[in-house]
């Protein structure tokens, strides 16, 4: 069983000491970083609406439950990235 975490940190600096605790080979972090969500602009397809999401985004997958990640978890309604498991 794999545990997946969608995390958001205040900024990259805050994420580094947390991600340094990830068990090697038993977990992996995908750094998404800053993220802008684009949605259709029906009036001007060439200029989609841009919505910058707050924070520094990271997805983690792990073979064990990682309690220390829980304070940073978010549950987005529209995920911005996926790790296939």
């Amino acid at each position, binding site marked *: 069983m*794999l545990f997946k975490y969608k995390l958001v940190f205040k900024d990259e600096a805050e994420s580094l000491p947390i991600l340094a605790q990830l068990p090697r*080979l038993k*977990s*992996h972090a*995908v750094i998404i970083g*800053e*993220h*802008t*969500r*684009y*949605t*259709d602009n029906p009036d001007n*397809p*060439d200029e*989609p609406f*841009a919505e910058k999401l707050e924070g520094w985004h990271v*997805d983690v*997958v*792990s*073979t064990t439950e990682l309690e220390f990640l829980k304070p940073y978890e978010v549950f987005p309604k529209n*995920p*911005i*990235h*996926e*790790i*296939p*498991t």
Partner: protein
Amino acid sequence: MVVTTAGTQLFVTKQRPLQYTIEGFKGEHLFWTRVAEIVDFGEWGREYENINFNTIGSRRTHKLKGTFDDGAIMLALGRDIDDRGQQVLMNGLNDDSNHYFRIELPDGSINYFSARIGSYVRSGGGVDQVLGASTVIQITNDILEGMQPMQLKSADFVRQIYIDKYGRRGRFEDFFELTRLSKAWQWDSSKGMVEFDVGVPRITYEGLLLEPESTNFLIDSFLSSGRSGMQSVGGDLFFGVDEIGAHIHFKQTLNSNYAYKSYRDSDAPDGSHSLTYISETTGFSWGTSSKDSLQTVGISGSLLREVSHGVYSGQAFMQDTGQSSRDRGFVKRPFHDTKEPKFYLYQLENYPRYTSPIKTEDVPVTRLPETLTVLTDSNFTIEADEGIQVNGNEISGFGYIRKLEVK
């Protein structure tokens, strides 16, 4: 496979296993001492008393099994009074209790049994003989036959043959641990897109494939091409790349969806990305001529190269993709009446060359890196692609491993 006796080892302990089973003999509390300088192991094994029974009517001698004896080992030694194993045998001579033995054989099997030391006789001989001893080890219970754990000697990933140091053929998982915490895919021109579950190795006629982490930024990798996309000069645009201010985002226009990923310009230098199409059709020509099957924009040299059967890939020149010009995109058909190719995958990744297919649906997807751990304490050599790296007993990187040999 037939092997010689050379390398056979005898171990002894006075400590009793918790249970008389193979697992019991593997108990961690047992302290085994190797007996050195053995020159002849003799023979050992159970023998039954034969009971003959002659019947007058049939004239036949009927043979029945009576009592059995688990036998004895007549051990010939070069006498070494400093050897702790031989000391255990000498001290056990006047001890009525059982000793416990383990014999490791060169064919990979192990015999476990209990026995009492029946004799210890010193032998002198002539001037040219080594001072020796012989001892009889009387076996008092079943001889349990187990196997040594597999220890890798060689691996041929192309032929999928894995041999251990005892010549036994094992499975991949007997010798290796592959870590990949995500699914992965591989394109096979005859089987199509093959999906591999988490941790399942991708082994083909080329060997074992290891790849680094990579993300397909296109949000729907398997959308078929169609004419609902943006119009560009002469034909349909399958998807495009826009530049907005200091950021670039990828935009897939096939069904008005967008592939989302923002970069600072410096994160997306020319040639840092690759674009890949996988088609059922081989032999497409790519170029700017109207005679070409497909046109590319923003691709190095305006060309996609067929890197393997039906797999077309090239470096993406991110800086060349402007927002307002006709260069806004990667691939288009020259004319509406150009035969529409059938594609199985569109992939745009932050890697200067094509990695294996990454299936996406609604959001960008990341295939996680692969690490192969070789379950050995010994050094080894590999025959592999240039991108493969070895660090201790871990192998990672990018490419195929074909062979591995333990020294």
